[in-house]
């Protein structure tokens, strides 16, 4: 049985619309415009339009989930701090749009001594790489943009671009606080990328693939990977919080010491987009945890697989908010100690467990 994917559904729809248009143009009887009807049913334009539509639909859906994460964080933090959280619109759902309009209306200020080209380009690169990550995580076997063999590797490669742009941005602002924040950010992201790669390596050993669909299919036939690789799950979760610069690890933008870290000089919509990129990265981290450890879209069939996926993503993000509200910011030496002396050995142990399980033939 061939499953109806988003692409095939829209492709069929576009072909049908093209045929209707061709028929309508034939009915008019004007010979001069009949080439438009012939053009509407040929493979090239229909394919191209369908790919554009799939990208647009997936993009909007993923961005909506990303900003729902912001709303969720505000509401849950509010409840934990015994207040109501955001109130704009129904349940505070329109707060994000109000913020977007506010940041759009502000003046874009570039500091006089800043390196203007790099100041603009670094933030473009950061936001671009964060948004590119959205298209890589499939929601189910039928709702995705592209399904290449090396999806996981593409994701990690794009994820590793961020520290470079953060450092360039901090340097281009020409401000010592931005500079210190950028240094901290890059050091932290590089240090915590190594345990993440080791844990991902253990998953590749277990499932034998870099493709999200195969990884989830493996978990559907065996068991969710969070049970055999529990140590790796915890390591990945902590590293994921550090990679998205959330509270116990938000040294790069420690407000009390560094104003706003490397993003101090950015204002207006640039700041808004940087904040959105932060939350998009947090969403991608929770999506990765969901797909790699929690079985992705695996679940009882009374709900759609996409719904299971979203439930798990929001649950993981809820735990991240919980961690945020329960902990305080750690010091730089503690950060490095946790990263190099605790998480890296744990990820190596996890890798050993995966190798032993695979070698014994239990999976």
């Amino acid at each position, binding site marked *: 049985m061939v499953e109806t994917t988003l692409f095939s559904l829209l492709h069929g729809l576009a072909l049908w619309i093209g045929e209707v248009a061709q028929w309508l143009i034939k009915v008019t009887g004007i010979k001069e415009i009949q080439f438009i009807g012939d053009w509407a049913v040929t493979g090239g334009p229909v394919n191209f339009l369908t790919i554009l539509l799939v990208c647009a639909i997936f993009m909007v859906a993923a961005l909506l989930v990303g900003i729902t994460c912001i709303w969720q964080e505000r509401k849950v933090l509010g409840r934990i701090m015994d207040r109501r959280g955001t109130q704009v619109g129904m349940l505070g759902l329109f707060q994000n749009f109000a913020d977007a309009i506010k940041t759009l209306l502000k003046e874009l200020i570039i500091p006089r*001594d800043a*390196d203007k080209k790099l100041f603009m380009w670094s933030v473009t690169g950061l936001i671009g790489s964060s948004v590119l990550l959205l298209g890589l995580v499939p929601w189910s076997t039928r709702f995705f943009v592209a399904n290449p063999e090396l999806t996981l590797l593409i994701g990690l*490669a794009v994820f590793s*671009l961020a520290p*470079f742009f953060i450092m360039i941005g901090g340097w281009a602002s020409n401000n010592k606080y931005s500079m210190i924040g950028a240094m901290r950010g*890059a050091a932290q992201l590089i240090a915590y990328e190594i345990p993440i790669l080791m844990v991902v390596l253990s998953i590749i050993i277990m499932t034998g693939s870099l493709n999200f669909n195969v990884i989830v299919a493996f978990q559907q036939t065996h068991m969710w990977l969070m049970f055999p690789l529990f140590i790796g799950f915890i390591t990945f979760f902590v590293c994921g919080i550090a990679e998205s610069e959330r509270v116990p690890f938000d040294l790069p933008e420690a407000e009390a010491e560094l104003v706003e870290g490397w993003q101090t000089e950015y204002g207006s919509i640039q700041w808004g987009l940087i904040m959105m990129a932060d939350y998009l990265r947090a969403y991608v981290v929770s999506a990765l945890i969901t797909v790699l450890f929690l079985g992705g879209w695996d679940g009882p069939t009374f709900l759609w697989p996409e719904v299971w996926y979203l439930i798990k993503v929001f649950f993981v993000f809820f735990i991240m908010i919980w961690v945020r509200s329960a902990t305080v910011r750690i010091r730089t030496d503690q950060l490095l100690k946790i990263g190099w002396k605790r998480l890296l050995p744990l990820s190596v142990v996890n890798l050993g467990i995966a190798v032993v399980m695979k070698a014994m033939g239990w999976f």
Partner: protein
Amino acid sequence: MDLSELLFLIIAGITVGAAISVLVTKEIIRAVFYLTFCFIGVGITFIFLNAEFLGLIQVLVYVGAINVLILFGVMLTKRRLTGGGACE
């Protein structure tokens, strides 16, 4: 002309242009920035040669690690920020 051929020419042009810019620019951080585009262009060229794994590893290692290492090296040895006076 074939579409992929055109795409390859564009990517190759960007790569070569970035490589020349690395040599021409005076500001060393900008040179590192152009070097990134050069590395990414080389990675995409590998993908054109049907070596996707190599291309992705190129981006992961060279852009994600080597470039940041160069930046750390440059920034930690530099004494003053651009423009204005000396900064402690």
